[in-house]
């Protein structure tokens, strides 16, 4: 099984709800003990837009952002970030980041957690696209005269 890159895993876990992650998390079994070395803490990220979508950046406004850093018993560090204020969500992402660095956990993490979450995310996005597609206008032209 191919390994999910660190950035792709962070993205997948941030786009998945905490409830979805926890639903699969139990399949990992007993994880190494960990403690939080930073946070979980909630602050803000200032979001930038672009003038006209492509031009100079401007500050649009802020959003809540939570980050966490954990350390495993053996000293492995993991980091996680997620929009919103869910401390446990950020901690789970950081923990996944730490565990993913341990060879003995990689496959379980991939197959039991990341793969099903990726499938769920893809299905959710497909459903959203299908719902939007149902509101797509099919134009027809009325032919007048002969």
């Amino acid at each position, binding site marked *: 099984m191919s390994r999910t890159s*660190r*950035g792709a895993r*962070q*993205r997948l876990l*941030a*786009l998945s709800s905490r409830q979805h992650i926890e639903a699969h998390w139990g399949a990992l079994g007993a994880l190494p003990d960990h403690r939080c070395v930073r946070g979980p*803490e*909630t*602050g*803000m*990220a*200032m*979001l*930038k*837009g*672009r*003038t*006209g*979508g*492509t*031009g*100079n*950046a*401007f*500050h*649009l*406004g*802020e*959003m*809540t*952002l939570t*980050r966490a*850093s954990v350390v495993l018993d053996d000293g492995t560090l993991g*980091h996680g*970030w*997620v*929009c*919103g*204020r869910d401390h446990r969500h950020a901690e789970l992402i950081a923990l996944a980041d730490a565990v993913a660095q341990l060879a003995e956990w990689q496959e379980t993490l991939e197959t039991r957690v990341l793969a099903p979450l990726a499938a769920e995310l893809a299905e959710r*996005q*497909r*459903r*959203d*696209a*299908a*719902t*939007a*597609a*149902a*509101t*797509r*206008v099919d*134009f027809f032209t009325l032919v007048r005269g002969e």
Partner: protein
Amino acid sequence: MYVAVKGGEQAIANAHRWLADRRRGDRDRPELEVAQIGDQLRLAVDRVMSEASLYDPELAALAFKQASGDLTEAVFLLRAYRTTLPRLAVSEPLDTANMRIERRISATYKDIPGGQILGPTYDYTHRLLDFLQLAGAEVPPAETRDDVTDAEPCPPILELLNDEGLVEQEVDDGREPSDITRDPPDYPMERAARLQMLARGDEGYLLALGYSTQRGYGRNHPFAGEIRLGQVEVEIHVDEWDETICVGEIALSECQMINQFGGSREAAPQFTRGYGLAFGHNERKTMAMALVDRALRAEELGEPISGPAQQAEFVLAHADSVDASGFVSHLKLPHYVDFQSELDLLRRLRREHATRQAELDSARDTAGPQQEER
């Protein structure tokens, strides 16, 4: 001179208790849950987030509930909460071209790649009250079109027009935008700072100003080139990995307005643009914002400044509902001493007026008849 006014503590406590009681309403009915507001009153939630300038649907729903549905009060609550949080990151510019589209329409081109997608819109509804909702009728789930396996790409429409150079291009020159939450506004204001102020501006105010340009007070001949609503991923750069990562996605509304021509001796005539961007589903807000953004470019584009919507300092200094309601509301604070001094002044002026009047009258009494005799 300041005079401390004390008292009213019990009255205030009881007033707040009554407010909470009113907010709770009839105890025989279930209490409104914050999650229900986030779910079922989401356009109100989006407006609160947008004008509070803080994206957090749950907190915006809480603010809306706490404010008993008073949007301006809810915006104030969320804006105030914002000040309690540290800033952990600044995002990469949001890539609206890669939005997961929920709605995307153009009033300038009918056949566009990706198509016209109406999304969950109030457009084309008949604006007739739906009494079925009063009766609590079941609502069928949204229709889906399952032959669609993947969303067809929806490229930004204005980029398509750019092939012929008909529309001015927005190009990033790499300039770092100022931040009105850190640097006090300074006039004349660069466009980036104007957009930041407009993005948090009161929708009703911007709507009125945008409308005024349509009615002729700074006309700029707008077309809705493209409006898109949907989800956009947020990316931040993190030092820990020296990498740009995705931390989630947020709902955004964007309006690209195309306006009548600019040009000069050197530059060929081309369409000009106005831009609107806001949190959540805030279509009307982004349209109004785009109209006002374009109006505020009057000086840059060499247009006469004739309408209120074109006057940057006037428009921007009064756009924020927290500022505006704060200053209007302060009139309710005790002004007893202020008012007392005004009363004293007024009484003195009236006494002086009466004295002057009496002198004039007596002068007329003595001088008047003599004048008649002449």
